[in-house]
């Protein structure tokens, strides 16, 4: 008895998951993602995947939208965390902090996702740049 019930429960749970997934797929058709279907299909076809079902296209669109939104949110947090710069004393006001996405914030946000967009700190113009004078003479 116990074995049967325990065996049935995972099946019921799986069935519920399938039903939830099916409903989620259906709800995708009610929601228009920010990323248009044509764009998603273009890039999916580029990677070799083609599916006539629009629900799958929208699922990919929503997943990508979430990913980009997460990255942008992290960048926004980085932007807000930076202290605002007081520009001019005459204004007697603190310059409002405008939320501008810069590469600095973006690179910090993307670092957590494994994407390295860090700018080079400097570029050497000679092979001996940055070396000790002693070794340079050699």
């Amino acid at each position: 008895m116990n074995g049967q019930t325990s065996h049935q429960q995972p099946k019921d749970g799986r069935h519920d998951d399938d039903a939830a997934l099916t409903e989620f797929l259906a709800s995708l058709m009610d929601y228009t993602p920010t990323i248009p279907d044509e764009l998603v299909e273009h890039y999916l076809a580029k990677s070799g995947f083609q599916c006539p079902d629009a629900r799958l296209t929208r699922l990919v669109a929503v997943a990508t939208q979430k990913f980009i939104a997460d990255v942008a949110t992290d960048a926004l947090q980085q932007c807000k965390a930076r202290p605002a710069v007081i520009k001019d004393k005459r204004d007697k006001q603190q310059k409002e902090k405008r939320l501008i996405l810069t590469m600095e914030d973006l690179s910090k946000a993307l670092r957590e996702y494994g994407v390295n967009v860090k700018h080079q700190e400097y570029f050497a113009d000679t092979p001996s740049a940055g070396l000790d004078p002693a070794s340079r003479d050699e």
Partner: protein
Amino acid sequence: MALLGEDGRGYELARKLESQGIWRSWLGDALYSSFIPFLSSPAAWDSFMLPDDSKSRPQISLELRARALLFDKASVSLFAQPTALSKLNPNYLELHGDDVYFTLENGGQDVDQRHPGVAASSTTSSKGRSKASSIGSRFSEPDVDAVSQRLRLEELPETWYNQFFEKYRATKSYTLMFGDRDSEKRTPEQMSTYLSLIENHKRRRVAFVDNISSLRSNPVMVDGSPADDAPLFPETMSIFNCVPDSAVLITRRLENNQKVPFNGVLDNLPQTMTKSPVMSPIMIERLGIRPEYLSMEQGQGWGKNGSQGSRKLLSQEQASRISQKVVVRLLHNVGFESSSDTSLEVIAQLLSSHINKLGRTLKLLADSYRKQCSATELLKMFLQTAGYSNFRTLVELMKDNSKSVAPQTQQQGLSIQGQNLPQQQQPSVQQSQQMLRQMNPQMQQMNNPQYLAFQQQQQQWERMRRRQQHQQQLHQQQQLQQQQQQSTPRPGMNMNMSIDKDRPLVQVKMEAPSDFPLDTNTFTSMNPRQPQLRQQQLAAISSFHAQANNNAFRPMNSLQIPQIHSPTMSMARAPPVKVEGFQELMGGDSSAKHDSEENKLLSPRK
């Protein structure tokens, strides 16, 4: 084969061959005499043709030789339409030496002594029909000796083909082949002659004719020779000029070029039940009708556009442009005011790369586990790989976005205007752009004098929009008040909130009777500080949040702006989005930016 009769014995065909005296030539006189009794009656023929273990070896050999000719002549029915025996061409039934291809290897020369046995095997092939007879090669005497030895063992004379070729070899035409070297030239004239020769030859040997007399009434004269049925050996007669009948090779083309419907494993995802309690009421409530896609066939209705190719195809440049626009919208939803060009490009590339990655994942899963897993299981695997095993987060994202998109679409034009406003020019406040929300390029064009020209053109447009928004504002006032109270109030903001609360209310009421309360000077006290106020408001306007609070504020802002600009005639139709940031303050946004802006807004009253 139809020519062999219903029983397959071929008695009628054998009788027909006998009538033309072919059996005698084929079998030879010795064997013919022992063969002819079997043709006397069908029963005798059946006993002759029937395989029987009691038969002796010579009898079996005779039967095999008879079968060889019989089936060879009957095999034409395999390639042609089944017709009656009576329509057989008598010439076709005749024995022809050129039915068998004679290889000219080592013709007239010494034979390779090392492989006598190989040559003894059947190395000949017919020109168009399969031969059942075992015919040795013709080109070597030792081979012929081997064959003849074998035949002697079988107590049968040489086959007719052997005898024929022996005779032919002795003829003049065969010996001339090796002596005459002048004809070793390939010329168009000789090639065309060969083709006509072949054509006539085929016409003479056609198997079925409707009218035999018509065949004989067309004498063929080729090169002055009589139209007799002489054997035709292109390999000896025209070595260098024998060409195919047609320059175009006959190939079997695929007739079916139709699109084969190919269903991948993910093409038929499970559909929701039509009686779903979640879907039906929502769809009926929103649209009033049952959703179409629920009644369509699985996988076909939803994706029919893609399968039929009516989807718009994008080029690489178009895709990159669209992805940049999408990124702008996404950044706007998140809360950014503007972005640098480089960041925009980076995120656009990130978007495309991410979609590529998801596509690769899907393709890999579908290809690898197509047979083991169902579509639903593959989807779960995909979601887990992508990191969304619990797709509630996606559902929440959809809900949040749908809340922000619904009122935003109504206010789209006005909110876009807010983004374009410069900080220093008052007339530019009236500028409005009916484009998508592109923060970056618009912020760059803030000081562009071209926008001044748009003022008068868009005044009426703004008027129309404000009329539409007026009704929405009345509905959202109560929500606004509740949200203001629920927000985290700051010490300095309380007074402001109370004061600012009145503004939209008052403004809404005043606007009700007339379109634009130009005479109302409720806020004339703010006029001296208007330029400064406007600058601050412009900065605050473009700070959007993907929340319902902010969306509710926007219609309020639209009413406040005309009153603020009332003293100035040119400002009568100011764009409404100026005070969006002002409304956000009322909404109690807890960010430091709003705090500072609110302080700026309060400064005129102090």
